[in-house]
């Protein structure tokens, strides 16, 4: 492989607001707060920031507004992606590329949303007109992103014998971890019986399979590896990034997301992204100490464990059993509780947690001697990922 941005940049600051069901604040206000905290955490001054990156699904605030609000003397790089969960790792990669290529020195990356009290992504509280792909879905009652996920999850059950108890193990682990995380919204541990008794929403999904719609913002600061070495915290280096998917990734409507043409609904973008990701980093899945996997629904964790190569295809269900993905297990997953417990800040909160783990600042939920972390973002057929190291 030729020159890549491997290890040439680092995450040096992290910040977050309260995660809640009703922030009572604008997305600009939340973004300002998260960015300010992340910059303070880095040891840089606000005026050192010259790049701002974010993403939205028509629910956030532009990087230009945040740059103005922060009072940045100069904005040399700005980017606003549109899209779903694929975007969080991808925009950290965008920031790293800008820094590695000299377009900017210090870039703040944020995601700000009133995902519960404002625009609720995923179809709840919103009823778009049945145009485009949606004209083949909405008239039949396929009206939510949850429904698209259910098609994938059911297909996996059909192909590989994945059971509700496997989905349950994912949400139980998330709650167990969230109980140790002061940011988490749901901090009460649950049992398998609690899971199985929870209300069926769209079979095979119960209420406890589904992420928490959340208000809040978080942010990270990306700078060069050289500058990172003289800042406040131990740098967390960006080893590798990858994004995209395979053939026929088509059909993204933010609410229904049919993805009707994808070759197989039994796997995800990750099987295409993983070789590029691990190839750039020059490591193997077994080298990963902690994985923060985008978990808009429980099933996504199982799919990604397979498609990133932590277990064989079809064995993701058994893999999540027996505490293997819990703290102290073979591969701790979503040590902050993920979207199922901490909240849905669209995947950037997974990056924040990965950084805390690699700094050794995760307190009661610290993975001992964590050196390498995977953080991912899913759009089912498209997605992205970062490999970070201390």
């Amino acid at each position, binding site marked *: 492989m030729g020159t890549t941005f491997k290890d040439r940049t680092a995450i040096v600051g992290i910040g977050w607001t309260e995660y809640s069901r009703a922030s009572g604040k604008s997305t600009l206000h939340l973004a300002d707060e998260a960015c300010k905290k992340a910059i303070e955490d880095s040891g840089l001054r606000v005026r050192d920031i010259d790049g701002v990156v974010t993403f939205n699904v028509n629910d956030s605030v532009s990087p230009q507004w945040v740059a103005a609000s922060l009072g940045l003397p100069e904005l040399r790089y700005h980017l606003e992606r549109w899209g779903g969960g694929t975007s969080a790792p991808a925009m950290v990669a965008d920031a790293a590329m800008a820094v590695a290529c000299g377009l900017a020195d210090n870039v703040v990356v944020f995601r700000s949303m009133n995902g519960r009290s404002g625009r609720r992504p995923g179809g709840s509280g919103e009823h778009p007109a049945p145009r485009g792909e949606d004209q083949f879905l909405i*008239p039949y009652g396929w009206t*939510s992103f949850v429904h698209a996920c*259910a098609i994938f999850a059911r297909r996996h059950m*059909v192909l590989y014998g994945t059971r509700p108890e496997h989905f349950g193990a994912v949400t139980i682990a998330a709650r167990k971890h969230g109980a140790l995380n002061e940011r988490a919204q749901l901090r009460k541990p649950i049992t398998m019986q609690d899971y199985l008794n929870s*209300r069926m929403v*769209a079979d095979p999904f119960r209420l406890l399979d589904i992420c928490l719609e959340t208000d809040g913002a978080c942010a990270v600061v990306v700078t060069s590896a050289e500058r990172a070495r003289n800042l406040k915290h131990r740098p967390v280096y960006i080893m590798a990034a990858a994004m995209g998917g395979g053939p*026929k990734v088509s059909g993204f409507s933010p609410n229904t997301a049919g993805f*009707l*043409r994808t070759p197989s*609904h039994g796997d995800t973008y990750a099987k295409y992204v993983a070789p590029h990701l691990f190839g750039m980093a020059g490591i193997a899945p077994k080298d990963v100490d902690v994985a923060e996997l985008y978990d808009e629904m429980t099933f996504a964790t199982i799919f990604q464990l397979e498609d990133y190569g932590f277990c064989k295809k079809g064995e993701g269900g058994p893999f999540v059993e027996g505490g293997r993905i819990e703290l102290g297990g073979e591969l701790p997953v979503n040590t902050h509780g993920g979207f199922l417990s901490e909240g849905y800040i669209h995947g950037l909160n997974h990056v924040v947690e990965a950084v805390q783990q690699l700094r050794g600042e995760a307190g009661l939920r610290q993975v001992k001697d964590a050196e390498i972390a995977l953080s991912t973002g899913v759009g089912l057929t498209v997605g992205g990922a970062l490999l970070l190291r201390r």
Partner: protein
Amino acid sequence: MADYRKPLPIPDQYTQGYWDAARRHELVMQWCPHCGVYMFPPDPMCPGCNSLDREWKKVGGRGRVYSWFVVHYATHPDFAGDVPYAVVLVQLDEQEDLRVPGNIVGCRPEDIEAGMKVEVVFEDVTPEFTLPRWRPSEE
């Protein structure tokens, strides 16, 4: 029929032919005359040969249940009275990745099985619109 209250398709230049055929109780798929690939949902370009030519071709209306879900809590209020209802993704016999969503009729949600054979049926929900749906088939 007159009091049908659920969302109806909003056809466009790429999909009008599909809904026109449904009104005639025919299931058609976009088809590439150059390489013979079917496409659903319709697409301006054939992903097989990049041709921008396309035709509507009548298909047999038979397939198998590829995947499905059963809605118990409707996020869209127009479907609240229907729960529990099933949405199936049917893989048509013509092509492996040719999959069409719809509702199943004549089958309880709990009786749906992967791979079960289904055939299209047409429901004239309004004078303007006919929705293709699916029912279990012996053949």
